[in-house]
């Protein structure tokens, strides 16, 4: 048993057999005695006054138990929806939010009434039978017009639609650099709204036990402890009286971090009716009312020299916050702070973010959250510069990279990149993708009238949230550290309770690998538990922002080391030696120089619950650790995409996708590769397929089913060629960085850069997302007319 090799072992995910054989436990799989089902009546209008709600028709349906509106919930729920300071502590207009609309509905899909019935069909029948008299109000259906003085207001009670307007560094700071620039390139870059679309939609079941005065909530969330905190607060219950259980979660991608109206409405209803209540989101509700991602516009200018040296950048972000500021809606301005990417900007970066309210569902983090936007804008601008000065995009990047010897590197906003070898990853990616040979093939194809292109994306990421000093102010108090509790039982099996919460990441496997090596116990003897606030440490911080390994994995590691330290004392006592003379190796304690006589961790565990412990040593073998990382971690990589564009139809064929990524040391290569496959697919999806569309006149959602919202399938995504470099993080003992968002952060820029490269003979220097055939065909046609003219 080579237990010392579990870290780094390419083993299959232990959670998969039950997930892929129908053994998963999702919210809808759970039933409770006397369970009622809730359906929600939602506003069909982007903005409307609610004149009257007539529930007579619903009450007439046998099996409908209750119809509740804002008036019914006001005595049950207090406070307003939480909005984290994130990167914008001083906001301008932050509309107050109650989980259900009272007299004004401000986005299509906002709850207006709930119906509770004996089963789901009756609940939907009841919802359909409710007549709501709306007075449609002028709606804000687009981002930039919302800022104009004559614009309708998203909330009639607010003075304007400006959520924030924050300058991180003023334009003056880059004036000198722009004055001396030999070349300036400018672009407006769109980041369309995206729907996170987890396979399992949201769902909440709640039960209130009157005898114990205990509320139990089963739900699909990335963040059980935060949900407990928010819901207990709103319901006036101590945290101890609320238990949030989240078994298997069928994907989140950031959309299951923040609390939602239903997370309050379902428990409040269960408490009111004294019956368990369940609500399961439909797919259309998911597309309509689960928070969207992206939804931004960037105006970017880059100043440079003709030799490709970068000088300075100006970036303004306009962010569509939606009708309310999302709980982590102000996280996405991180795009400004990372706009410099993997490069040095000696003349500075001027950055401003403007948050805009619109009559649409709020935006919140979506896989990558601000970092795909940053990568996309800087990688686009570098290509635009390369095109402008007639230089190879590779050379422009290499000229401006932060070099390996410059780490730790402090960027223009004071963020400290921990380690990296950006050119190392790029060189490897160029080699694997056959970049130099491609240029020859491209020449040949162009002579044949074919449009082949290649695109680079060299990405960096801030992740592993995060150090307490930085994160506590951003959440409004709680530091995003992470907890783990390790309990070794007398017979040598161990349970590890973690404060993170997996929704597809494979934590049961990865954390068990770390625990096995740290504790010197067999991998099979380790059980990982998460997703139940009644177990383990008092608080957990959840899974998002590629934090679970770098922060949560380290908590497992440090708790495990506390166990080993105690076990070493007990073992020394058993071996009649001084603890300083005892060595722990391969799961065995022995006196230095005498490996033949050893005690296994299991034997020591048994002794820890027996008699004759060394003086001053408590019984038992368990430890709890909260890990507070000294810095964020900074993974990076280089992606190369090869495409062919059909100029007659605007269709893009993905020919080859190569990714070389560096997430420091790797615990399980198979899981890293799986994260990259999925992440790259989601980035390609943004580049080519997905877009939440609203009718510009009526504000009605046009992409309310998966027939219209184009999530690509395995058929549309080429299998990427993956490789890696390994630059360990100095931030944590494991040397690890995050990889969950990497593929998504990198991919959209690689694809769009390839398309622009393909079409550059037509004079095209920028393409917006999604690069749908219709959009590209129009752009190609215009360019061809321009060339002819």
């Amino acid at each position, binding site marked *: 048993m080579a237990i010392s090799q579990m870290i780094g072992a390419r083993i299959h995910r232990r959670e998969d057999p039950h997930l892929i054989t129908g053994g998963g436990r999702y919210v809808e799989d759970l039933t409770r005695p006397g369970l009622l089902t809730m359906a929600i009546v939602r506003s069909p209008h982007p903005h409307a006054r609610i004149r009257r709600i007539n529930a007579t028709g619903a009450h007439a349906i046998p099996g409908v138990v209750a119809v509740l509106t804002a008036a019914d919930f006001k005595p049950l729920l207090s406070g307003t929806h939480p909005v984290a300071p994130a990167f914008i502590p001083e906001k301008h207009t932050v509309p107050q939010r109650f989980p259900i609309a009272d007299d004004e509905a401000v986005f299509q899909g906002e709850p207006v009434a709930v119906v509770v019935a004996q089963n*789901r*069909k009756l609940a*939907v*029948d009841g919802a*359909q039978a409710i007549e709501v008299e709306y007075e449609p109000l002028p709606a804000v259906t687009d981002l930039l017009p919302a800022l104009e003085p004559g614009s309708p207001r998203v909330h009639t009670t607010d003075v304007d639609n400006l959520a924030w307007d924050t300058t991180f560094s003023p334009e003056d700071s880059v004036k000198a650099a722009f004055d001396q620039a030999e070349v300036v390139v400018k672009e407006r870059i769109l980041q369309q709204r995206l729907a996170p679309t987890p396979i399992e939609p949201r769902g909440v079941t709640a039960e209130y036990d009157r005898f114990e005065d205990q509320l139990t909530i089963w739900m699909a969330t990335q963040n059980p402890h935060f949900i407990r905190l928010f819901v207990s607060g709103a319901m006036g219950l101590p945290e101890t009286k609320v238990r949030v259980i989240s078994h298997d979660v069928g994907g989140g991608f950031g959309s299951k971090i923040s609390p939602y109206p239903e997370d309050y409405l379902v428990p409040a209803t269960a408490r009111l009716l004294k019956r368990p209540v369940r609500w399961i989101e*439909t*797919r*259309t509700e998911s597309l309509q009312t689960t928070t969207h991602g992206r939804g931004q516009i960037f105006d970017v200018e880059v100043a440079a020299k003709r030799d490709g040296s970068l000088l300075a950048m100006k970036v303004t972000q306009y962010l569509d916050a939606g009708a309310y500021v999302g709980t982590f809606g102000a996280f996405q301005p991180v795009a400004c702070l990372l706009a410099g990417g993997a490069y040095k900007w000696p003349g500075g970066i001027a950055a401003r973010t403007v948050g805009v309210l619109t009559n649409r569902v709020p935006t919140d983090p979506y896989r990558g959250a601000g970092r795909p936007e940053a990568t996309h804008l800087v990688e686009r601008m570098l290509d635009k510069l390369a095109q402008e000065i007639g230089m190879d995009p590779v050379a422009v990047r290499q000229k401006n990279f932060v070099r390996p010897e410059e780490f730790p590197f402090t960027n223009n906003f004071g963020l400290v990149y921990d380690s990296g070898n950006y050119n190392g990853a790029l060189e490897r990616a160029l080699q694997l993708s056959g970049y130099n040979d491609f240029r020859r093939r491209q020449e040949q194809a162009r002579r044949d009238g074919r449009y082949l292109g290649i695109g680079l994306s060299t990405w960096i990421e801030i992740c592993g949230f995060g150090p307490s000093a930085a994160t506590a102010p951003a959440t409004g108090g709680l530091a995003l550290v992470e907890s783990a509790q390790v309990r070794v039982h007398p017979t040598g099996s161990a349970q590890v309770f973690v404060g993170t919460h997996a929704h597809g990441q494979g934590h049961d496997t990865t954390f068990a690998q770390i625990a096995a090596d740290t504790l010197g116990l067999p991998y099979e003897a380790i059980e990982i538990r998460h997703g139940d606030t009644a177990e383990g440490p008092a608080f957990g911080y959840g899974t998002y922002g590629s934090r679970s390994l770098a922060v949560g994995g380290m908590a497992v590691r440090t708790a495990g080391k506390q166990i080993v330290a105690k076990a070493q004392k007990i073992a020394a006592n058993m071996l009649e030696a001084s603890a300083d003379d005892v060595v722990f190796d391969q799961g065995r304690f022995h006196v230095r120089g005498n490996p033949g006589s050893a005690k296994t961790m299991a034997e020591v565990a048994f002794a820890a619950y027996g008699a004759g412990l060394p003086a001053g040593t408590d019984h038992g073998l368990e430890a709890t650790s909260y890990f507070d990382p000294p810095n964020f971690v900074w993974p990076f990589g280089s992606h190369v995409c090869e495409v062919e564009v059909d100029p*007659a*139809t*605007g*269709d893009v064929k993905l020919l080859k996708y190569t990714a070389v990524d560096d997430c420091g040391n790797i615990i399980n290569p198979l899981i890293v590769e799986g994260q990259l496959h999925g992440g790259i697919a989601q980035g390609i999806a943004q580049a080519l*397929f997905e*877009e939440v*569309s609203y009718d510009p006149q009526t504000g009605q959602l*046009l*992409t309310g*089913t998966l*027939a*219209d919202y*184009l999530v*690509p*399938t395995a*058929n*549309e995504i080429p299998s990427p060629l993956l490789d890696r470099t390994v630059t360990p993080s100095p931030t944590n003992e494991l040397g690890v960085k995050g990889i969950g968002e990497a593929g998504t952060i990198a991919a959209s820029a690689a694809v769009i850069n390839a398309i622009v490269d393909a079409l550059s003979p037509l004079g095209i220097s920028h393409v917006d997302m999604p690069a*749908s*055939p*219709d959009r590209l*065909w*129009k752009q190609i046609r215009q360019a061809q007319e321009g060339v002819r003219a």
Partner: protein
Amino acid sequence: MIPAAFRYQRASSVDEASRLLGQGEDVKVLAGGHSLIPLMRLRLAQPTMLVDINPLEGELGYIRRDNGTLRVGALTRHYQIEQSADVQRALPLLAEVAGEVGDLQVRSMGTIGGVLAHADPAGDYGTLALMLDATISTNRRSIPASQFFLGLFTTPLAADELITEVSFPVASGPHRYIKFRRRLSDWAIVGAGAQRMDDGQWRVGITNAAATPVRASGVEQALASGASPAEAARQANQGLDPASDVRGSAEYKTHLAQVLTQRAIEGAT
């Protein structure tokens, strides 16, 4: 995502199905259900009763070749059409089109009669029926395909009328159907079919670029008078009236019809 209440009846014969269909205002036939059930789940359709004709598979699920005619029973599944050696020989274009409908689950349940009766302009079989002058038979009469597609989701079928069979002329010459779509299992944004008949004449049709399938007569005539595929395909915009939607603008779809028509003719094998 749960349908409203409806009554459900299984038909044991075509006559019984017809009788049940005549019983009320909003009675629908359930064949493969792949268009109807999603509409019901969204409550965009709330029929009072479904008449399940799947028990009639023995009667209405067949593929027969009679000399110059290929007869396909209305309840024949896409997968059966795709796999049929008779279809592959007699009208390979139909087998190929059947093989590109939806995904395997859809092809295993969906039926040719259901596609035609639903008269969604995105249905590929309608284009084939129209361009090949197929005949659509019901329990009452035979309707030439040219008189079948009256408008969006609109056919001349009476409430108690049921499609029983579609008969196509045999044609094994060069053919091609191009289904332009973003994802493999999607409907065509626009489709174009071309078939050279045994008399040497081309038949051309366009899918999903108007309220009904469109026969590209102008293209056919141009080809007959010796035009090149590129020249002829310019006529493919005639009679089109595509809707602008999230998949593409009307202008783009019209252009696409021309490009795909040219490629279908040039690529016919």
